[in-house]
């Protein structure tokens, strides 16, 4: 990670948000980041409130449980703690921009957004004709993030990743990004990955680094591993109404904490026990025997 990088995260929408990495970027005092994602739940809002963001390329920035993202609003409306640029998208147009890069194309055509204001005078979207003479289209220009940060259930040391549950734009972003950083619940032997090649959403040669960080997506959920911790989303929504409220929150939950392990300690074992998935609901067997 470098200052000024464009970073795609929160790609599976409300689940698997790499909060451990989000908080580490804040701790490291990154500067002038561009954040890319469909909807980010409160992750983008926290980074904006911490002042590490210069630009947002997204379809929605707020707090899914609560609505408004107050850090986002303060930055856009009042330039507090700093002003940010916003490139507005719909979920589909930001997805098309990442998919174009994933496909190695300069753009992809679409019909979404026609008649609305998102696509008007948009730096990445322009009207085009259908070369086959059909109705007018829009061209969505390719978006290649410097880094994609993706939380998955398991990966091997080469970065071959098994991911299940919500996918959102995870795969498209991993293909599109110059560098892909995996955060996983467990690093597993290669044979676990090889046992189910159709479960591999990201092949290792696209992966730059793999980090084993159990619970790294909390308070967001991760299918089969962690439930969603609902209260922190509401708490952040409450305290982030004012700058005076959000700063102590950032100190307590991010800046004064060295790492995710400490964050989990601070949550407490009873909370973790409540959030950790203990039941088993296993996928039906799939036989790969040749």
């Amino acid at each position: 990670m470098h200052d000024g990088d464009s970073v795609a995260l929160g790609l599976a929408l409300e689940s698997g948000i790499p909060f451990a990495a989000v908080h580490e970027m804040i701790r490291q005092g990154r500067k002038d980041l561009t954040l890319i994602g469909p909807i980010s739940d409160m992750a983008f809002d926290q980074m904006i409130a911490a002042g590490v963001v210069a630009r947002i390329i997204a379809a929605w920035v707020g707090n899914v449980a609560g609505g408004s993202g107050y850090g986002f609003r303060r930055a856009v409306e009042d330039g507090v703690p700093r002003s940010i640029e916003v490139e507005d998208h719909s979920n589909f147009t930001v997805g098309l921009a990442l998919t174009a890069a994933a496909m190695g194309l300069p753009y992809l055509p679409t019909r979404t957004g026609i008649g609305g204001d998102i696509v008007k005078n948009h730096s990445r979207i322009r009207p085009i004709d259908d070369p086959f003479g059909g109705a007018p289209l829009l061209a969505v220009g390719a978006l290649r993030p410097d880094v994609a940060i993706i939380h998955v259930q398991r990966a091997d040391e080469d970065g071959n990743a098994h991911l299940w549950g919500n996918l959102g734009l995870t795969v498209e972003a991993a293909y599109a990004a110059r560098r892909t950083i995996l955060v996983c619940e467990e690093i597993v032997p290669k044979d676990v990955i090889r046992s189910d090649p159709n479960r591999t959403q990201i092949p290792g040669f696209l992966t730059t680094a793999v980090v084993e960080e159990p619970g790294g997506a909390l308070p967001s959920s991760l299918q089969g591993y962690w439930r969603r911790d609902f209260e922190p989303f509401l708490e952040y929504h409450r305290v982030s109404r004012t700058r005076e409220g959000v700063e102590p929150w950032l100190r307590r939950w991010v800046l004064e904490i060295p790492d995710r392990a400490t964050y989990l300690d601070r949550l407490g074992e009873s909370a973790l026990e409540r959030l950790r998935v203990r039941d088993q609901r296993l996928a039906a067997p799939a036989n790969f025997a040749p």
Partner: protein
Amino acid sequence: MTEPYTRRELMVVAAGREIHDHEVVFVGMRLPLLGFGLAKATHAPDAVGLFENGVIRDRPAEAFIYTMGDPPNIAGAIACLGLMDVMCLLQQGRVDVGFIGGAEIDPLGNLNTTRTAAGGATVRLPGSGGGGDIASLARRTVLIMEHEPRRFRQQLDYVTSPGHFHGRRSGGPSTLITTLGVFDLSDGRFRAASLHPGITRDAVRNATGFPVAIDDSVPVTRAPTADELAYIRHADPLGFWTGEPMKGR
């Protein structure tokens, strides 16, 4: 004499009625999600629900969910695809009806969830999410709103989700369900289809910042049946969505 119900429970029932059997439905959270479950449990057992994160379900989640990404919405889904897959199905015209909410609406059913100067200073709202896509690409859309004068505006500062516009080739808003009534928006009209029990024509007119057609013969929105209420209270036991005012996104 039916038992008491909240206005939001009435809206859920109205939302459910907009879903026909065998339809493919782009489901939102909150009231539409409950409406989808209600429709499945009553008149539309074979409806299928799509979520913008790629989840496809043929029955509601087994437990209460706060977001469409919550684990109970994944467990027991018939498919977990990607966001692009469901958006492409939407763009292909495979989605019959989609539900959208908005902060503001105009007479053509345009929705604004991006920014507004209605209160004077410009307020930044969260943005489109998948709303703009559903509004553009679903075969028809059903809108759900708080019915307040500041939200019903002749002219929006920003159109996030397009309604009816000149040159529109397909789709567009068919129905608007509000806290005061149900409105027919098909082919660019804005006409009251029913008013909720106890709501007067004047109450609607005063809460709507532009002219709205209300026939003298406008019916009263049908009250929920006991079965419908039973379903809703089973699905939202704490009244998280049906007991209190609607929230943002």
